């Protein structure tokens, strides 16, 4: 009875609530995501022309993009981009940097250990945990089966 009422209410609310403007959001995500990757491509191409090999250039690309994401977050620009672009600026590595700087900056008042350093990875920590753990499992499976 109680659960049925809750179910009914949830269905009712779902039909009442406005949906996100999907087409507009997807277009923004596509364009901004694409542009960010082009900036990365530019850095990589430039590094290659300076004589770095492909792997080094790729690392330089990642490092520069992390710097840009962190810097734009510090300037207070990145959240403005994110408001429109959504996943377009969350999914690229610049968004990873944004997820590190934004809590770290905001918790400065709570000190440099429990504030900045501890809060840096509240959003980004899970990415490292699952990313690294997955890579270890993949490595082990590969080692066993080859």
């Amino acid at each position, binding site marked *: 009875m109680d659960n049925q009422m809750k179910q009914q209410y949830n269905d009712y609310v779902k039909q009442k609530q406005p*949906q996100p403007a*999907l087409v507009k*959001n*997807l277009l923004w*995500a596509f364009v901004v*995501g*694409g542009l*960010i*990757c*082009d900036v*990365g*491509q*530019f*850095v*990589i191409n430039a590094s290659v022309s300076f004589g770095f090999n492909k792997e080094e250039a790729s*690392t330089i*690309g*990642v*490092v520069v*993009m*992390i*710097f840009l994401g*962190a*810097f734009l977050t*510090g300037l*207070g620009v990145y959240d403005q981009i994110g408001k429109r672009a959504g*996943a*377009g600026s969350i*999914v*690229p*590595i*610049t*968004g*990873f*940097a944004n*997820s590190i*700087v934004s809590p*770290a*900056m905001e918790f*400065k008042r709570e000190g440099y250990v429990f504030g*900045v350093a501890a809060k*840096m990875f509240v*959003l*980004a920590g*899970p*990415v*490292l945990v*699952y*990313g*690294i753990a*997955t*890579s*270890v499992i*993949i*490595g082990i*499976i*590969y*080692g*066993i089966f*080859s």
Partner: protein
Amino acid sequence: MDYVKAFVTGGAICVIGQILMDKTNLTPAHVLVFFVTAGAVLTAVGIYEPIVQFGGAGATIPLTGFGYSLAKGAIKEVQTAGLIGALTGGVKSTAGGIAAAVVFGYSMAVLFNPKSKK
């Protein structure tokens, strides 16, 4: 041509993220975790490498690319150093990015203050 490919590939990956966020209740943190894991798994089964070959930065700059580097590094290290490489390979190949995130993240946080939203 590089740029067109990177634009399309990167844009498409972000579109998948946007669909996940708008159509499910996943938070940005969930989406990021999903992407890094998906990138690693797709690399292990051999699907992501061709995407990187095609899209360049369009495939390496999104977080799936971080998963790609982790998985690729682990596999490579296992080939040369044996099973212990599973533990060292992934982090080794992404060390630059991780250290950059820590250093830039910390220094930006110290230098700047958050601005109130209008």
